[in-house]
């Protein structure tokens, strides 16, 4: 008799768990609007309740496109804090990344054109990427796993009119970056990237504390949390800025467990071995990516460092990163050149 109760209990528990899993399961919609992540006019990207905008200290450069990032955790879900790794985000989490160009970078009031929205969704069997391409009317974005090449036109910070192809990556290319040990993972939401001030309706405050106040993170102190430098903050130390830039732009592939581990070049923030960081390191399987140069980094000599050579071209057979880099990031190149010229990579000055 008692045994029967136990059996019924187990069955009920199983039903409860499976229905909970059903609640968590994610249905991929054909249109972005169908998810209801945004309220009002879709292109205003005004987050619905439970959807929060977040910012990173040093984001990945993407052809000068600007990005608006949002996170939606499942009801009652919390991010698991880590000092070093990307936060443990529960099943049901959706990261929403929107790519756009201001029509005139000097005058944001002149409007913008959103090109694509990428969803990174934590499903029961792991993370999945779902790319959406916006229409010209900016009224809707349609699920499109194959990607395409769009032509964008805008006026840049210097007032110069730029017309350039922008390659919207296909679903698999998302994994070119978002992969660690053959598994798809998010990259951005780590303590070092999120540890910064953010301005919301609640005023300006530390973003980690803000997440905590929203119940997105457990209660703890963030005083000792690591903080990645902002690559373009000239008040920060040169080495910190350069390493932050390399961490955000290269480290997702060039790290142990990343796809570029084949090269033996590791550019993530944790690398402390100068040779693995590229100093006087001969390239492996780089082909014409070497540009007739011998070493990844020659201290004091950016012009003969392969690292700089590959940042300075948009030839897809040479350019690094391999995707999302149809344009050259001049300011990023200048930073890495200065870092190599001043040989600051071994010390903090």
């Amino acid at each position, binding site marked *: 008799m008692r045994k029967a109760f136990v059996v019924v209990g187990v069955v009920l528990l199983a039903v409860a768990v499976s229905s909970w899993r059903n609640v968590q399961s994610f249905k991929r919609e054909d249109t972005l609007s169908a998810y209801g992540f945004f309220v009002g006019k879709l292109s205003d990207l005004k987050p619905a309740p439970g959807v929060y905008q977040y910012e990173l200290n040093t984001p990945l450069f993407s052809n000068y496109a600007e990005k608006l990032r949002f996170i939606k955790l499942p009801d009652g879900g919390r991010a698991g804090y880590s000092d070093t790794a990307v936060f443990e985000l529960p099943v049901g989490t959706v990261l929403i990344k929107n790519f756009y160009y201001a029509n005139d970078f000097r005058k944001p009031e002149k409007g913008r054109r959103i090109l694509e929205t990428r969803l990174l969704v934590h499903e029961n069997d792991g993370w999945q990427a779902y790319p959406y391409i916006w229409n010209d009317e900016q009224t809707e974005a349609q699920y499109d796993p194959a990607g395409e090449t769009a032509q964008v036109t805008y006026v840049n910070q210097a007032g110069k009119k730029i017309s350039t192809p922008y*390659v919207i990556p296909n679903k698999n290319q998302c994994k070119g970056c978002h992969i660690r040990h053959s598994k798809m993972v998010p990259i951005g939401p780590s303590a070092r990237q999120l540890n910064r001030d953010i301005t919301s309706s609640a005023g300006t405050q530390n973003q980690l504390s803000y997440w905590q106040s929203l119940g997105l993170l457990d209660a703890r102190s963030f005083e000792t949390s690591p903080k990645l430098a902002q690559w373009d903050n000239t008040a920060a130390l040169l080495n910190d800025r350069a390493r932050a830039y390399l961490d955000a732009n290269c480290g997702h592939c060039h790290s142990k467990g990343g796809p570029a581990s084949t090269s*033996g070049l590791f550019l993530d923030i944790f690398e402390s071995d100068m040779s*693995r960081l590229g100093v006087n390191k001969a390239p492996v399987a780089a*082909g014409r990516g070497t*540009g007739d140069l011998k070493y990844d980094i020659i201290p004091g000599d950016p012009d003969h460092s392969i690292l700089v050579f590959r940042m300075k071209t948009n030839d*897809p057979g040479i350019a690094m990163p391999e*995707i999302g880099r149809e344009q050259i990031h001049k300011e990023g190149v200048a930073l890495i050149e200065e870092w190599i010229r001043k040989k600051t990579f071994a010390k903090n000055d």
Partner: protein
Amino acid sequence: MRSNIFTLIFCVLAITAFSQKEIQKKFQTQFIDVSNGGTIELPAGTFQLDASLWLDEKKNVTIKGAGIDKTILNFKGQLSGAEGIKITNSSAITLQDLAVQDTKGDAIKTQMVDGITFKNVKAEWTNGGKKDNGAYGLYPVQCTNVLIDGCVAIGASDAGIYVGQSKYIVVKNSKAYQNVAGIEIENSLYADVFDNEAFNNTGGILVFDLPDLIQKEGGYVRVFKNNIHDNNHINFAPKGNTVGKVPQGTGLMILATRNVEAFENRIVNNISAGTAIVSYYITENPINDKSYKPFPSNIYIHNNYYDRPNVKATSKGRLGKMYKFKLRFGKNVPHIIYDGIVDKENPNRNICIRNNTNASFANIDAENGFKNKSRDMKPHDCEQSPLSPVTLSARSN
């Protein structure tokens, strides 16, 4: 009338441009949507593509064209992606009956795939051997159970067929020409390379172990029954690449690898070195990797046929200068060259050379400024037990 013609031309151009974009999308969608166990059929024709085609996380999928010279994917003018076709994180994938041309980077790269078959596939740069060509034609890396059969690689600025950091490999019935390296097995374990023709490359077949890599130690490589001839192409590798050091006129080069057996090959008309057995020190690159072993050992060269024309070795490049100013062989260049650099911790490196036809030899004593170079092959007259054939595991799911 004239404006009508212009309108017509405009329309034709517009249709072409439109269909190119559609083709890219159609193929890439097929690569994403194919279900496990499925086949992607690519029709006959020449298709102009502007971004990589990428297959990821699939099992037991075949990508099939209408024939090696019938389905041609041309990537001239490519905007995005460092290769033509990329296949990752998959198992039991077959690529067959198609050609990939003029990619900006590598032609076909496969990474982290267990069971990858290239059958009747051509990777080609159509303007011949040029420095601006991509590095690798067929490029499996970090793969297991690799079969390359009936393939052709032309014009790679590094290696036409390049297997790197992989295990259980068969390369057969294939042709490589006008590449810097025809066929290269690098930091890879258990490879059989046979019945191939490597000609008009800078170096025909290379077996290399390089430092600073994840898969540290390659070896157990058998190179047999290949026709390795006329590999006298000028070296057009961009500097900084290890193959950039390979002297023009190299047939078979074994660099820093252990357990290599080369037999029953026809190694002819390679002007500088029919066969070279060298340590990594010959590259004069610094070694930072402390776990790296720079010396070749357990090498067995036997029953090969050698011949060469009565001409001088190359004088180009650093090693060409070595021939010209240090070795001074004139036209009497030995077929087999051993660098003679001694591993002090392991002086007997077991390098055996026996029963070859026409083979002449030199230990060039590179460590001591070539002072005691010797053409005496006797110290290497020894036998080794043959390496076992490679068996590939069939993966069907």
